[in-house]
């Protein structure tokens, strides 16, 4: 009857010095869904997804991926499992080109002896791939794929990070405010991309402050408050203003039995 969650977190605690960023919080992501995480600034949204992907190590609690407990000591391990993350503070190397950034750590080598013996990179192939992915996102204002990332506008950088995650994810994707810096057109593409990814069966965790976006794409909405999972609601059953009210503490969360802790059995 119950589907196995892709990610299951129980009683996670993370403290930074004397700040408790996550306070015994639970977390569930199910196959094929878009789970939105909303909450006030500083509620601990970034912290909890960082704990899931290994960018920080939780002080307490247990994280299971597809039922198996994991203890990532670095996001690299998460990546090897096919988990991709778009960080709020973007993880791009400013002086490297867009293509270099997209392929960091999984470069393509030339076929034949140049690749195997001389380990030469296949720059052409990587550039083509990078350009295609950016074009899919509609980020055509980029003048050259060999431009250093530091010469891009804030929104353009965000686009590069999103394109990278979408291109390489196999298990699930975490996006921490992916549209925050994007223009209207570019935001729309990201939302379409999220739906494309879901259509491929890859679940997505989407952190966002943009309620219309959240209500448009999310299957379930995880409301985070004061370091805890405050409620999980169904965006089709609750109004935006109620969700915002719960999130900001203006309204009590619905009783647990009315919450949407797991997706409805299809």
């Amino acid at each position, binding site marked *: 009857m119950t589907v196995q969650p892709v990610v299951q977190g129980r009683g996670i605690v993370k403290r930074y010095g004397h700040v408790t960023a996550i306070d015994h919080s639970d977390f569930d992501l199910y196959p094929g869904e878009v789970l939105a995480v909303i909450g006030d600034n500083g509620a601990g949204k970034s912290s909890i997804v960082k704990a899931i992907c290994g*960018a920080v190590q939780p002080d307490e609690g247990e994280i299971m991926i597809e039922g198996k407990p994991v203890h990532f000591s*670095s*996001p*690299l391990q998460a*990546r090897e499992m096919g988990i991709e*993350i778009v*960080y709020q503070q*973007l*993880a*791009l*190397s*400013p*002086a*490297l080109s867009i293509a*270099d*950034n997209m392929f*960091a*750590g*999984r*470069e393509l*080598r030339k076929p034949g002896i140049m690749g195997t013996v*001389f*380990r*030469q*990179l296949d720059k052409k192939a990587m550039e083509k791939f990078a350009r295609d992915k950016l074009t899919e996102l*509609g980020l*055509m*204002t980029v*003048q050259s794929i060999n431009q250093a990332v530091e010469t891009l506008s804030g929104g353009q950088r965000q686009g590069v990070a999103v394109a*990278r995650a979408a291109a390489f994810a196999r298990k699930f994707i975490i996006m921490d405010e992916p549209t925050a810096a994007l223009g*209207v*057109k570019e935001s*729309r593409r990201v*939302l379409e991309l999220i739906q494309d990814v879901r259509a491929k069966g890859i679940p997505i965790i989407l952190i966002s402050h943009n309620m*219309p976006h959240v*209500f*448009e794409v999310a299957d379930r909405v995880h409301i985070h408050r004061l370091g805890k999972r405050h409620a999980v609601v169904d*965006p*089709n*059953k609750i*109004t*935006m203003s109620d969700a915002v009210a719960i999130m900001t503490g203006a309204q009590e969360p619905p009783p647990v039995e009315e919450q949407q802790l797991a997706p409805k059995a299809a």
Partner: protein
Amino acid sequence: MSETASKGQDYESSLSGATSGVAEFERRKGALYSVQHALHTNPALVPLIVLVLSIVVFGLLLGSKFFSPFALTLILQQVQIVGIVAAAQSLVILTAGIDLSVGAIMVLSSVVMGQFTFRYGLPPAVAVLCGLACGTLMGFINGILVAKVKLPPFIVTLGMWQIVLATNFLYSANETIRAQDIEAQAPLFQFFGTVIAIGGARLTYGAIFMVVLFLFLAYVLKQTAWGRHVYAIGDDKEAAELSGIETDKVLISVYMASGLICAFAGWALVGRIGSVSPTSGQLANIESITAVVIGGISLFGGRGDVLGSLFGALIVGVFTLGLRLLGADAQWTYLLIGVLIIAAVAVDQWIRKVST
């Protein structure tokens, strides 16, 4: 029920009609622009130009005394040790590190080669391998401390400098192995000293090795994944880590490569001075850093071209020889080299500014 239509917000309805062409901006054209662009994209060009200019100036001032195959190849020979060490230093500096222990590692490696043959009687070829292994091991220790224990490279290599140097003095008992003995029993040690004379030009294998090493590193840094990772780490280590680069492995390999190259420098040193002397190389760290920085590699990491360090080392060599031939005395030469370090970097900075 959601208040907004699932097809996006109303005002987005017009998006479908948005143009999708690539933005076209007016571009500046012309020769000046091309020069600027070239300078901008090839950071090694500036030191190359400074190098050529300084050769021309000294050539004009000194005539054939300086502008002769003999003198010019002499410069190559004189900078070979600093040059090879600067190659190692460049790698480390590209990762935003610094290696103060290069000179000490170089000397200890040469001492290990010498002592393993002359004290323990190992065949010279085996001793050379042991020396190279020794250098790599020292680099490995540096790398572990930097990458795993996460100590600042400056402090790690400052400590290792003292440790390796003291080990070198203790182990060698401050004894020099004489050139005559090496020539008789282990000529392999002097391999890099072999001279090829073409007319007045005198190239040593060591000088050729230096040039080949730089070309090799330039290839590796530009054309392989490892090279891109070195740049990415120097640029922003945390971002590199988050974007999936195994920063620890790369860092350790960089320090090991640095140690290995220093050991080669130690071997070349024996070729150059003939003997194995534990008091060599005390200034190799400062001199190699000078070469790297004059060569336009940023001390903050991630920017610059390894070939620049070769030109940087040669610039210092040209000025040293040129000034001495002009009759400046040693302290005046140091003073002028000091001025030139600052001037070279100021010029570099200025050209870069113009070119953006």
